[in-house]
Structure formats: structure tokens, C-alpha cells
């Protein structure tokens, strides 16, 4: 599924700007973005139900939905969803269109320079020899300048520079390169007088070369920046806005997923059914606990205080203990000073579930320690279990991947939260160090 994620992401980048169709073949959804010259791409989105898209916007949202589905359903493998995927696909489009933009930019610059001269030529103010020599000289010089400009721009983008930085860099290098070129020509003209055939009266001094180079490259740079770089920047900005939107929605989806899985609810209901005859009081207690979890689940915001988070975890653990009586114990170590600290709501729940299902329940006397503390000004959350250990990555990887992804999404713009799953002595420790509050 991860490998399928990549083409889907690439397709997504194009869909935003191109008419797209999405069709379903044998239960495999295929998104087909066309109209981008020479780059129609197919993204296979496994089993996500997509229908033909009536409009670009629909295709866009469908691909997004499928991608979110994929990202959260796949085992996610740490970085399968990289932050820059959109930027990268946008970059592909940018680079593909670069040559065309260079040609149109070149043509536009020539028109800008030659249009006034043409009028003067028509009235006989400018002599044909001057006009054609100018046409020839500018044609050559602008072509060279454009090649330099585009090459630098392209190389900078490929090296991972941002659009703005690449633009400024290419514009800044073009001028000196042009100046060097003009100076070279002046020197050549002095040595080989034949080079002066265009306009024998033109001076061959260094200052003339340098200043004409600056003056000549100016319209080219202005045209290039105005016609291509500014619109590209605007588009990139819009794309980023859209991406933030996507990320926000994805974060929401992950939060919902983390709350209460149907599987958990159904198994708990079944356990209550089993307790009704044997221990009616316990059955009622469990009903109450489940009710509280459900009530909270409908009103949980983005963030939780540690106090609320712990209350939730305690109920969650109580239900698991009812389902697996006598098999594991939970110890709570919550520093009083962190009670009011904030963390992404329920980010710890998949960790607890993982510690129970894949850790403590696998050994004869399971033990889990839940710890909330402060270290170096940051909130630290630790869930340790005495299970057999994570191995390369436990089968509960999905829940852990959701935690990683949520931390990544919700610490956007701040010092990132970190997550690790390590073995310490006889314990497997899942540790989250949260981003500093208010930074």
C-alpha cells in the first residue's frame, strides 16, 4: 500500500490544476490526471471507493480522501507521508513547464525591446542596419541570458531550494554572467576587429560593456520575474494553503480514529453480556464506564489536559482489565505539577492499547506503568510494559504510526514532539516528549 501511496500523491499534485478522472477497476480505484503535457499519470488507490469525478474539485477531494485513507490505513512506515509531497509534485509540474516558459519569456523580451525600435524603423529614424544588428545581438544575448537564468533556477530547485530563493538566486547570477559575457565580447572585439562588424561605432571599453550588460539584462529579468516567477509563487502559496487544510482535516480524522474503534465497543459490549449472569454489579459498572467514554468521545477537542487524559486512560484500562481479568496490572505515576499541562487529546491511548495487547497480555504477569512527568520544560509521557518487547516493529504498528503522524501534524510550526519505542531493561517503553507549550 505504501508504494501505491506515492503515485497517488503525485497524481494529487496534478489533479489540482488539471481536469482529472477517477475510475474504479476491479475494486482498485484508479485516478487518472490528464492535460498536463506529457505527464498523464495513474495512481492506484487500493480498494478506496472512488467514482468518476464530475469536476476538478471533486477529483481533488476524492484523491485527497483516498490518500488520507491510505495514509492512515497503511502501516505508514514512519515517513511514508512526507511533509513535502505536495511541494514535490508541484515542483515536477514546474520543471516540466520550464522550457515552455523560457521560450515565451524570451519571445516577450524580444518584443518589448524591438517594438519601439520597429516603429522608429518604419519612420526611418532608426537605420535598418542598426535595427537588424540590434535584433541579432539581442536575440543572441537574450538567448544566452535566458539559458543561464533557467539553468540556475532549475538547478536551485532541484537542489531543494525554495521557489523564492531559487528565483532570487537565478536573477542575481544572470546579471554578473551577462556582464562577464559583454566584457568578454569587448575584449574579443579589441583583439579581433571582425567582431565589430555589427556596429563599428560601438565602443569597446569595459565600462560600456558592463553598463550595457546591466541595462540589457534588466528587461529580461523583469519579464521573467513578472511572467513566470510571481505567478508560480502565487500558485505555490495557494497550494500550501490547500495543504494546510488537508493536514487539518487529516489530523481530525486521526483523532476520531483514535477515540473509539467499533472493535473496542463491540468487544466491550460482549464482555458486559458475559458478566451479566456472573457479576451483575460489575456488568453495570462497566456499562457506566463505557458510557462515560462514549460521552467524552463526542465532546473531545483537539487538546486534553493531562488530568482528562489520565481519566480517560483509567477507564480505558478498566475495560481492558474487565475483559482480561487478572492478567495485568496498571500503575499510575502522574506528577501533580503536570495535571494542567496540555497534550493532543488521546494521543496516549493507542500507546496504552499497544502496551496491553502486544505487551502485557503476552506474559503471565503483565505489568504496565503509565507516567506523566516534566523534563527540561517539556511534558513527557511514558507507557511501559513488561511484554516480550517490540522486535523490529510490533504488529500494533498501525496505532503507533497514528501517534507519530498526529504528533507530526499537531506540532506543526513548533519544536516537534518526539516519539520513541525502546527497550529498557525488562520493559518496552513508549515515550512521547511533547513540544514545549506556548512556543
Amino acid at each position, binding site marked *: 500500500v505504501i508504494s501505491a501511496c506515492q503515485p497517488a500523491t503525485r497524481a494529487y499534485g496534478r489533479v489540482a490544476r488539471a481536469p482529472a478522472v477517477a475510475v474504479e477497476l476491479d475494486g482498485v480505484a484508479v485516478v487518472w490526471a490528464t492535460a498536463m503535457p506529457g505527464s498523464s499519470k495513474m495512481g492506484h488507490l487500493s480498494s478506496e471507493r472512488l467514482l468518476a469525478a464530475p469536476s476538478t474539485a471533486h477529483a481533488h477531494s476524492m484523491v485527497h480522501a483516498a490518500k488520507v485513507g491510505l495514509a492512515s490505513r497503511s502501516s505508514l512506515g514512519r515517513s511514508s507521508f512526507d511533509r513535502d509531497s505536495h511541494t514535490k509534485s508541484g515542483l515536477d509540474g514546474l520543471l516540466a513547464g520550464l522550457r515552455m516558459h523560457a521560450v515565451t519569456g524570451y519571445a516577450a523580451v524580444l518584443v518589448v525591446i524591438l517594438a519601439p525600435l520597429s516603429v522608429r524603423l518604419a519612420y526611418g529614424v532608426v537605420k535598418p542596419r542598426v535595427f537588424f544588428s540590434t535584433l541579432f545581438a539581442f536575440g543572441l544575448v537574450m538567448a544566452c541570458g535566458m539559458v543561464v537564468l533557467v539553468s540556475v533556477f532549475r538547478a536551485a530547485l532541484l537542489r531543494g531550494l525554495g521557489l523564492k530563493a531559487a528565483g532570487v538566486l537565478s536573477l542575481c547570477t544572470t546579471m554578473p554572467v551577462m556582464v562577464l559575457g559583454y566584457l568578454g565580447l569587448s575584449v574579443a572585439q579589441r583583439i579581433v576587429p571582425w567582431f565589430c562588424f555589427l556596429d563599428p561605432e560601438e565602443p569597446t571599453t569595459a565600462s560600456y560593456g558592463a553598463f550595457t550588460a546591466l541595462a540589457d539584462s534588466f528587461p529580461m529579468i523583469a519579464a521573467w520575474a513578472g511572467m513566470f516567477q510571481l505567478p508560480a509563487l502565487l500558485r505555490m502559496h495557494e497550494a500550501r494553503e490547500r495543504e494546510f487544510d488537508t493536514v487539518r482535516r487529516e489530523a481530525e480524522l486521526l483523532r476520531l480514529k483514535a477515540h473509539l474503534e467499533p472493535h473496542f465497543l*463491540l*468487544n466491550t459490549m*460482549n464482555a458486559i*453480556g*458475559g458478566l451479566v*449472569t*456472573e457479576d451483575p454489579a460489575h456488568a453495570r459498572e462497566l456499562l457506566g464506564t463505557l458510557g462515560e467514554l462514549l460521552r467524552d468521545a463526542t465532546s473531545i477537542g483537539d487538546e486534553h489536559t493531562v488530568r482528562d487524559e489520565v481519566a480517560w486512560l483509567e477507564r480505558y484500562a478498566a475495560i481492558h482489565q474487565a*475483559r*482480561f481479568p487478572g492478567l495485568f496490572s496498571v500503575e499510575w505515576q502522574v506528577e501533580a505539577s503536570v495535571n494542567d499541562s496540555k497534550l493532543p487529546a488521546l494521543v496516549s491511548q493507542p500507546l496504552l492499547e499497544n502496551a496491553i495487547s502486544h505487551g502485557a497480555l503476552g506474559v503471565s504477569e503483565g505489568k504496565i506503568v503509565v507516567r506523566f512527568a516534566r523534563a527540561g520544560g517539556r511534558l513527557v509521557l511514558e507507557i511501559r510494559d513488561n511484554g516480550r518487547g517490540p522486535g523490529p516493529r510490533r*504488529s500494533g504498528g498501525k496505532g503507533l504510526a497514528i501517534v507519530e503522524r498526529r504528533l507530526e501534524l499537531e506540532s506543526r510550526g513548533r519544536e516537534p514532539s518526539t516519539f520513541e519505542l525502546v527497550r529498557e531493561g525488562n520493559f518496552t517503553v513508549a515515550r512521547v516528549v511533547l513540544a514545549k507549550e506556548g512556543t
Partner: protein
Amino acid sequence: MLSALVLEDERPARSYLVELVEATRLARVHAAVPSVALALEALRDVDVDVAFVDVNLVGSGGGPTAGLAFVERARDEGKVARFVITTASREHALTAFDLGVIDYLTKPFVLSRVRESLSRVAEARPAGGRGERARDEGRVVARKGRSLVFLDPGEAWAFEAEGRLAFVHSAEGRLDVDLSLAALEAVLGPNYLRVHRNWLVAVARVKGIERDGGETSLVVGDGTRTVTVPVARDRVGQVKARLLTSTIGLRLTE
């Protein structure tokens, strides 16, 4: 009567299913176990007509579909005639039917649905036995560490619930039992008497009644070892009546 094996990792769910299976009167539970290893051990000497198998068996190893792997193995070994999958979700339905399971029970369980499953098993039950079939009378499967101990009716003197766990008292000592007393009551039938919320005793193993102040207790066991079992106050009358029925030498006064 069909013989059934219940493989379910969660104790309340296991007890629940055992109660429901017994309530259908279509099958007797041969063994109800929490892990694949114990299920295989329970099947070592006997075959059963149907196994109810949970898909996700925590603590059995083998990942989130350990139950399906068990189905495949037990089917290939011919120890189980029919399989019923029990699970909360439908996500494994296709795989399960590919394995040839006869039914798919979703949680929470309901009696009518369990009855339907067992009816299907009964209809499809092949004529003629293979290995030794599980016997019809309820046997108790207790656990001594990681191995199973089968107790014939009568060998289990008393069952005790402590906290959320259950134990059986027998000549072998106090062993773990992976079912609730309610489920055991359903399996064992009227030869066992619930004398206390936490105690279920074999009527035939009661050796005496003791009174100490307001408390009544029973002495249960054989000639060499006994356990003292408290009787709940509100059940004293009922227990005495049941113990004195078919007993010669004492007459019950109204």
C-alpha cells in the same frame, strides 16, 4: 448432542459463549480455553463436532489472526469437524469462508444466533466417528500452569471465584479454571449447586455441614483432603433442602 470447543481469549466473552452454547441444549462444551496452545492440548485425545474460534487471540502469538491459523491447522489435522468464527468485525469473513468455516458469529453474542449456528453444524454433521469423540457429560478443563487437567464429573469438588478469577478444588489441589461460575454451572448441570456467590460445589462431594454462630459452611472433598465452603445466608435453606433430598436418615420438617 454435539461436542464443542470454545477458543476465546477474553474471559467474560468465553464464559458468555459457554453459557449460550449450553443454553441451546444442542451441544456440550468439551473445553473452553483462552489460547491456541491450550486448544490444541484440549484436542489431543478427543475430536469435537464444532469449535467456536475467535480471530484475534491476544497472548497466543501469531499476530491479529491467530484464530484463523488455528482453524487451518485443526482442520488439516481433522480434530474438529466444523468451525464457527466469532469476532467483532466482519473484516475476516472472506478468509474465514475460504477456510471452510460453517458460520460467522459477530459480537455481541445472542442466543438465537448461537442456536442457529449449532443447528447448521448439526445438519452438516458427518455420519460416523473419526477419532474418539468428546463425551457427552460435562468434563471440566482446569489449568495447571501451562498444561491442562481434565476432571471427570465428581472429580471437581468445588469451584471458587476469587476476584475476577475462578479455581477448582480437586484431589490435585486448587487449579485455575478459565470460566465464570455461571458458565460452569451451565456446563455441569444439576449435579453442582451454587451455595454462594463465589462457590459452586459438587453435591455428591459434600461430606458435612458445619454451623458456627450464624455462619453455615460445607465440608467438601474426599477421605484425605477437604475444603470448607461458606454458604450464603439467603441460600442456606435451599442448599439444605437440595442436600437432604434423596438422603436417608433425616427428614425435612416444613
